């Protein structure tokens, strides 16, 4: 993957053609969409897949004996198989469809961690987690009297692995860390963390919300126990996401929500739960969303994650070099291994003002704490401005970002 050459400009132009939204204008200027860490745009094939389902195949899944229900079920399960293949899980039984990363983590916190946690136990996370990989553990710990341990990051935004290893102890029941920091862009050495945790017999959940669209994810190579991601951050629809879990762990967990489709038999005395993964999919699922996600993964595979990573690395290197040339701009997050995210502050200008002025130049970025308030406190700042790249962004768009940042400086230096 490291050896892949960045793609030619003509190839990027072809990729961009697949995304109708990238032709939008804001304030009469061409849209420069650099908020991909918040959500990604959708290729036509994803929009068409959702639309075609509703136009031709819509029915409930796993229920009807009629033809449509069978078609809907087949497509829904085909999407599950696409997810399995994309992350190289052993079995489609290990792929649970949820609303998104947040629901996936809550599921594990309540269904796996909470029943096992006791006083004197702990859950270990890192200081650069998104709120969705903090609060569910905080809640499970509060419910059980366990401790939430936080592994520190250094000034560059990297985990201190020696310190991390020391924090895994006899009472550690779970390690939950991000694969790629949404606020800093740091790539976390998750394979090593999994090794360290497994040496103590501790399972690991990886928050893949950011990583999934930028890094190749192979859950068997990583040997992680749980992997969570959202469809909308990898060019799929909102409201659909995935929890991968090793079958043995999922089998031993009680359902998270209960109701229809997750049962095998119900009497008023006793209910027997359905098999994996249906045990965790109570109620009618987001069928069209799953099918849309399947189409998104097909799309990403057709381009290839290696080509995507090569282009994004090239873009981030270029943007970093350009940003370093702007006096008063400070990059927050300077880890040696980074992907897709340029987070920064500017002397004398609040991120929110940067965001508004950039918006008027057609440049969409995120300004604020990025749902990582403890991390912002760690760096002694209220927030940052964050440009986050996707494979459909271009060098010209980085130039537009830098030109807009120069405008910000001019306005505030009057």
């Amino acid at each position, binding site marked *: 993957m490291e050896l892949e050459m960045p793609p030619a400009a003509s190839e990027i132009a072809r990729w961009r053609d697949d995304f109708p939204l990238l032709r939008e204008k804001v304030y009469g200027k061409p849209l420069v969409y650099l908020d991909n860490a918040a959500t990604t745009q959708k290729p036509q094939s994803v929009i068409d897949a959702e639309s075609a389902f509703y136009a031709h195949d819509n029915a409930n899944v796993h229920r009807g004996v009629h033809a449509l229900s069978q078609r809907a079920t087949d497509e829904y399960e085909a999407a599950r198989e696409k997810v399995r293949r994309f992350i190289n899980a052993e079995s489609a039984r290990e792929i649970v469809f949820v609303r998104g990363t947040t629901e996936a983590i809550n599921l594990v916190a309540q269904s796996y961690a909470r029943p096992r946690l006791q006083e004197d136990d702990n859950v270990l996370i890192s200081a650069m987690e998104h709120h969705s990989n903090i609060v569910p553990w905080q809640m499970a710990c509060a419910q059980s009297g366990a401790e939430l341990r936080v592994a520190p990051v250094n000034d560059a935004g990297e985990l201190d692995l020696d310190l991390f290893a020391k924090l895994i102890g006899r009472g550690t029941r779970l390690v939950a860390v991000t694969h790629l920091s949404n606020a800093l862009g740091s790539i976390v050495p998750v394979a090593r963390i999994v090794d360290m945790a497994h040496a103590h017999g501790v399972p690991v959940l990886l928050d893949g919300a950011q990583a999934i669209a930028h890094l190749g994810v192979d859950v068997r190579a990583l040997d992680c126990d749980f992997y969570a991601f959202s469809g909308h951050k990898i060019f799929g629809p909102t409201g659909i996401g995935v929890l991968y879990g090793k079958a043995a762990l999922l089998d031993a967990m009680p359902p998270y929500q209960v109701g229809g489709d997750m049962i095998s038999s119900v009497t008023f005395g006793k209910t027997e739960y359905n098999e994996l993964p249906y045990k965790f999919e109570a109620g009618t699922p987001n069928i069209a969303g799953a099918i849309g996600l399947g189409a998104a993964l097909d799309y990403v595979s057709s381009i290839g994650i290696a080509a995507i990573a090569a282009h994004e690395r090239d873009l981030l290197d270029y943007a970093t070099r350009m940003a370093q040339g702007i006096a008063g701009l400070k990059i927050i997050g300077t880890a040696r291994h980074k992907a897709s995210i340029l987070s920064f502050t500017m002397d004398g200008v*609040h991120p*929110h*003002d940067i965001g*508004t002025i950039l918006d008027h130049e057609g440049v969409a970025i995120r*300004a604020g704490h990025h749902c990582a308030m403890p991390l912002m406190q760690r760096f002694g700042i*209220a927030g940052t401005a964050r440009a986050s790249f996707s494979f459909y962004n271009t060098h010209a768009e980085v130039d537009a970002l830098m030109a807009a940042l120069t405008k910000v400086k001019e*306005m505030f230096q009057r």
Partner: protein
Amino acid sequence: MNDLRDLYQEVIFDHYKKPHNFHALAEANHIAHGHNRLCGDRITVYLQVEDDVIRDVSFEGEGCAISTASASLMTDALKGKRLDEAQHLFDEFHGMVTHEDVEPDPALGKLEVLAGVREFPARVKCATLAWHTLQAALKDRAAIVSTE
């Protein structure tokens, strides 16, 4: 189309770079903390109220140009005002930054430079943070602190 210059007027930059009444107030008998969840900005508003008149008012905190300038201008406007006048200013200010078709009340004076905010819905909360914190300081009994 909304114009950036309507939002970022010269007066806004002046108050952002050198905010007025930007300090804690030892004599304060009403204090409240405000927090904008969207961006993480925090503000503390201090009031010294005697006989239903705002004798002194100040603020501290960290915020964007809009929220800092708004707080600075607010403290200037409130000094010496009766509480009912302060409430009237709040209502008028809130109306000005949230309704396009409302002519700003002349009583707003310098606060009118923030009228451009109404063209920027994402920034209305920045402009109103200090004012909502003021409301909390005045209304919340628990926020009243002793000067002893």
